[in-house]
């Protein structure tokens, strides 16, 4: 048993998920690769989006991977931090906007 839930070296073993189910893994990785290719969005923009999403899902593997990826694709520190703020703003905003629901319910229940 590992003594922590997350092991940095496990990131390199991501592809090993195929050991327990090759067909779906193959489909997934093919799709995954295609998603990150240059397209209407550049590979750098996609890396920055992935970096923001990684912070939203708070996945340490993804944060490591897409920090490296963003650097490799030529993103600056400023761009990377702005991406994290976008994630953070959406997370904060999505909590706060539910405040309207709370207010509505409060009004429903109140005299």
């Amino acid at each position, binding site marked *: 048993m590992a003594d922590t839930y997350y092991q940095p070296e496990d990131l*390199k073993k991501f592809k090993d998920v195929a050991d327990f189910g090759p067909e779906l893994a193959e489909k997934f990785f093919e799709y995954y690769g295609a998603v990150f290719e*240059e397209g209407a969005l*550049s*590979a*750098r923009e996609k890396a920055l989006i992935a970096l923001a999403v990684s912070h939203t899902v708070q996945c340490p593997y993804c944060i490591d991977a897409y920090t*490296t990826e963003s*650097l*490799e*694709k*030529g993103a*600056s*520190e*400023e761009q990377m931090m702005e991406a994290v703020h976008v994630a953070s703003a959406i997370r904060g905003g999505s909590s706060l906007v539910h405040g309207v629901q709370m207010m509505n319910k409060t009004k429903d229940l109140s005299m």
Partner: protein
Amino acid sequence: MIKSLKTQSHKLSDPAYQLQVLNNYSESLRDLPRFRDKLKETDLFPLKPTGIEIFQMNVGYMCNMTCKHCHVDAGPDRREVMKKETFRQCLEALRDSEATTVDLTGGAPEMNPHFKWFVEEASKLGKEITVRSNLTILTTAPKYRALPEFFAKHGVEVTCSLPFYNKSRTDRQRGEGTYEKSIEALQKLNGIGYGREGSGLELNLVYNPAGAFLPGEQEPMEQTFKRQLSRKHGIVFNKLFTITNLPISRFLNFLLESGNLEDYMDRLVTAYNPAAAQGVMCRNTISVGWDGTLYDCDFNQMLDMPVEEDAPRHISEWNELKLNNRTIRINQHCFGCTAGAGSSCGGATT
């Protein structure tokens, strides 16, 4: 002033120790595949030249800068510079050589006292001349400030280092103030036509990662640099070459000190690309050291690995036929040339 590893008598200034680190430093490095075996899998072993197109001369390790990643361990405290006699021997060799390009590197090649004389002589031979400039040197003393015009007069291609399109990352790698000076030099070069369409004056930039990561694809990176430099400073240039940092000398020191060595080597090995191996630059380049010793490339030069014994080992013994038949000497550092899209002094190789 930051001192070179050599002046510090640092362990890593010993090439034999560097090779030992790359091969044996830890279990995970020992477990990595050997470059030789990878070449065998690709049917490229023994590695042979395809000819000599580029005649690269390292005219000295003296430099006005002391960048953290420098594979030459160059700096103001280095005293090794090519003598006039060796330059003459290079001209002799070049006279009947098939090589089309003379590539001048260092240190800061401009600091060699015979630099201008040699450029004049080499251009008479009708060879294309490339100078690898760190840019900042062109903003220092008046004799260096006047060099852009001299380059233009002789149609010299200027290939210069700019690790990033912003100040913080550039200065972290190359020293405080580098970015501003580089921009000033680029604007000067642009001012006399370098990098401008139709001028025939070629200005290329070299991007290399400021840390333990690989360079991204060359083409999109070039677009990003062009957009950013034009928007921020009105700078134009021709091509961007993406170069992978090879794990030797000061970059190796950084990898060790930052605890990144194992992961970086693993990245390089995992990213081994057979097509990039086909195109490694040692196959069409010869590297001449400041003392006239011949090497397969500038990296082998720094690792004190001259061309194999059966080949002529000094510029005074130049024999192109024999050099073309030599076997190129390789070691684990070579994985830096074959990762991803490949890396050479002319950027990606695939």
